[in-house]
């Protein structure tokens, strides 16, 4: 599945300062759909190059990191249970940087 | 270091100064390694081994004897300088099973035991010995505890209290749902339903705390106690400072963190306000004081988040809890944060004088606060909504609550309010009546239909 993953608000610093990543990700075996839960694991393993604790806390994003799926706050779509589809755009923005 | 020297309100500045004056050389060696170190106070015995210390407190600098007497001195200073216990009093110690209230119970017992010895030795026997009772509130209605587990807990507790004599102490075991009048049926079910209707996890916890307080009040007034001793320690107060701040209760916060809280019918006193949690658990460990472990209920409430935050801060800086309580201690307390003046000439002059002195600093605050009928926090006048537009009695009740209770305890949907009010213990309404800002007499009349008949014991 083709997805676009975007980092902002300073999170891009955790992945070699690259903001936009076009990725290709498989739906986990046995699962029908790819959920945000799966994407987070994938992002942490494949895109985050340093200080993962700035991005993840427990099994979800660190508080203070905003997540938008197709420009919609993931709090409206079920957070970790949000399912993803081909060509979706997922944006992670840190609110913790700068002022 | 438990406190930051001169700013601390407790008695520890005296020790602190003394220690600073004569222990520079000793404490530096003691800090470096445990071997060959001596207690900073008696300069004779070995300090308590540091391996036994979790974090903070004055534990590592004292030998066991000096540690014990230092802790007891903090307790006694709090008791005497705030006129918490007088010879004629009958005090009820609230025992939760934990370390802090176990130490409170032990210290109150030690004090009573000494008073009894003095009484027996004195010729005229003019000073009576204060009485002591113990209360345990069984909250198994609110938490999932199996009845066999509860039986074990109660058995342990009875044994422990019976060993704390002479003088003998009565143990009052009281399920929290007995806050409902004695006549009311199914009080356990009623309480369960009430708690089920509180959807916010923090609100549910806090409501139980308020009901526990109500239960203690009831035990005390039904059994002729005139003081309730609580074991809350500085660590507990520090967490309360932050959780009250987080809940928007900055105005009422100082009411809850003083040595005395007399807004209730029977005043609450906090003689362990200057002791750290780890000091208290260390004492239990050293002296083999038996505590009663209740199963811990995991919870994702604001309260538990605050507690783990405070624990983290305390780890980073062992005097953090003290600083937090000291900061909040500078907020202006309320008129009820002292033992009401006694003008009875039977009370020894010294007691009255001491009381005058401790009350002096509170004279600035004016009385007549109106309080939230659920948590009994004093209300900020600016916060009160107008009652004139309120139609039903339950609306009036809701509007009289503080904004924190409105948010986390009361139902959000006003159509559920009537039902909710009918599940509240009657005592809440009678208590609300004492708060004279609103006419709760008429409120009670209006909602009479929901209330079950008063018991005879209700004054």
């Amino acid at each position: 599945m083709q997805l676009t993953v975007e980092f902002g608000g300073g999170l891009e610093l955790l992945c070699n300062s690259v903001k936009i990543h076009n990725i290709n990700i498989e739906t986990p075996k046995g699962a029908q759909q790819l959920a945000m839960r799966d994407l987070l694991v994938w992002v942490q393993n494949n895109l985050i190059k340093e200080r993962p604790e700035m991005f993840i806390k427990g099994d979800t994003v660190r508080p203070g990191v905003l997540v938008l799926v197709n420009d919609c706050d993931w709090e409206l779509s079920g957070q970790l249970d949000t399912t993803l589809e081909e060509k979706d755009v997922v944006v992670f923005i840190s609110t913790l940087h700068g002022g | 270091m438990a406190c930051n020297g001169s700013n601390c309100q407790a008695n520890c500045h005296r020790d602190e100064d003394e220690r600073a004056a004569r222990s520079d050389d000793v404490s530096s060696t003691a800090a470096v390694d445990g071997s060959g170190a001596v207690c900073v106070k008696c300069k004779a015995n070995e300090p308590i081994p540091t391996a036994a210390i979790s974090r903070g407190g004055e534990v590592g600098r004292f030998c066991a004897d000096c540690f014990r007497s230092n802790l007891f001195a903090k307790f006694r200073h709090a008791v005497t300088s705030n006129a918490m216990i007088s010879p004629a009093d009958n005090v009820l110690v609230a025992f939760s099973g934990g370390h802090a209230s176990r130490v409170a119970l032990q210290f109150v017992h030690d004090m009573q035991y000494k008073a009894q010895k003095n009484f027996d030795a004195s010729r005229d026997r003019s000073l009576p010995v204060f009485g002591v009772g113990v209360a345990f509130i069984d909250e198994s209605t609110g938490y999932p505890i199996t009845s066999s587990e509860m039986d074990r807990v109660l058995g342990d507790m009875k044994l422990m209290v019976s060993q704390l004599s002479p003088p003998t102490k009565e143990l009052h075991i009281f399920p929290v749902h007995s806050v409902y009048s004695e006549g009311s049926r199914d009080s356990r079910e009623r309480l369960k339903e009430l708690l089920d209707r509180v959807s916010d996890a923090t609100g549910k916890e806090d409501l139980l705390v308020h009901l526990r307080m109500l239960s203690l009040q009831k035990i005390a007034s039904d059994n002729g106690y005139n003081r309730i001793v609580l074991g809350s320690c500085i660590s507990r107060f520090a967490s309360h400072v932050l959780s009250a701040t987080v809940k928007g209760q900055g105005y009422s916060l100082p009411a809850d963190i003083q040595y005395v809280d007399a807004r209730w019918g029977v005043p609450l006193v906090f003689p362990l306000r200057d002791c750290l949690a780890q000091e208290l658990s260390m004492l239990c460990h050293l002296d083999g004081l038996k505590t009663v472990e209740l199963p811990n209920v995991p919870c994702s409430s604001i309260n538990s988040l605050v507690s783990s935050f405070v624990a983290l801060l305390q780890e980073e800086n062992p005097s953090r809890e003290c600083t937090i309580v000291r900061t909040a201690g500078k907020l202006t307390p309320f008129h009820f944060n002292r033992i009401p003046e006694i003008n009875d000439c039977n009370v020894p002059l010294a007691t009255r004088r001491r009381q005058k002195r401790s009350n002096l600093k509170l004279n600035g605050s004016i009385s007549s606060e109106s309080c939230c009928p659920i948590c009994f926090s004093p209300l900020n006048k600016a916060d009160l909504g107008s009652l004139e537009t309120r139609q039903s009695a339950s609306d009036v009740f809701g509007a009289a609550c503080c904004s924190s209770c409105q948010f986390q305890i009361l139902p959000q949907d006003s159509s559920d309010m009537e039902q909710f009010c009918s599940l509240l213990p009657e005592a809440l309404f009678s208590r609300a009546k004492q708060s004279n800002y609103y006419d709760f007499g008429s409120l009670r009349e209006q909602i009479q239909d929901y209330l079950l008949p008063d018991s005879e014991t209700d004054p």
Partner: protein
Amino acid sequence: MAESHAKVQKVGGGRLCCICNERRAALKRPKTLEQICRECFFAVFEEEIHQVIVENQLFNPGERIAIGASGGKDSTVLAYVLSELNRRHDYRLDLFLLSVDEGITGYRDDSLETVKRNEIQYGLPLKIVSYKDLYGWTMDEIVKIIGLKNNCTFCGVFRRQALDRGASLLKVDKLVTGHNADDIAETVLLNILRGDIARLSRCTAITTGEDGPIPRCKPFKYTYEKEIVMYAYFKRLDYFSTECIYSPNAYRGFAREFIKDLERIRPRAILDIIKSGENFRIATSTKMPEQGTCERCGYISSQKWCKACVLLEGLNRGLPKLGIGRTRVLDKDQKKDLKQSIGTKSIASKQCGSLDF
């Protein structure tokens, strides 16, 4: 409560905005938990700030106002929204951007580029005051001398004064800063944790320094950081979000983390903390020391010399430790302040000073 909407929702299907009932909701407001669309969000976000400005009488017609602009999210959104509201509601304000160039290569020079673009995008005149011009030292030079230990103390003291000096050069009546609700809630907690009752009593005031040369105010006092970032994102505002190279982990503070954890289980906690801060019963006798002026530079100071001059003297005499830690030059209060700013690194999110003014 967070679990309640754990039901899987098809993205794109979406629910409708609870204000207009027409468009797809794009975010959940932390303040009200309403689900609203982008357009309605812009409208309520701007309107609420307008209400804050009106209710608190932050500005008078004809005033000259400097916006403290760092190039970061808060000040960028503030500059954008203020110029918008000024036009829409005819505040008749003369707005200026005021930036401080600390002289940090690879950080401030980049963020100043952002501010310079903002100058053009929003049509607001920009004034940059630099540490080099004001004090003769850049932060790069200072760090070369003193290392990375107390650099944030220098920077914080210098920045505060630099903003005031820039404001007086611009002859403005007020200085507005982008401090948001999360910042203020954090400051309330930090002042409790540090035992600073004097600051605790002032830190929730929306306008401060009315007795000083230039009052400062915070129009975002009640605005959630989440909404500011969402607004900047949806409006595609141009802001800079790299961390300061001399304090790279500054934003890892315990207190900030705690606030974000709280927000997750109870978003209104942030406003409740501010409310607590406003309602604390603090006796009026707990006041700050009398303000005089610095004998050397004329800046407000409670001591003979202001803090910046003490620090500068140390730098210029080759004694950079002067004014840091235990020196006789300092009186007790200053010592305490410094001890606090150094000793509490791990609890605050930004030592680099802009928080407590």
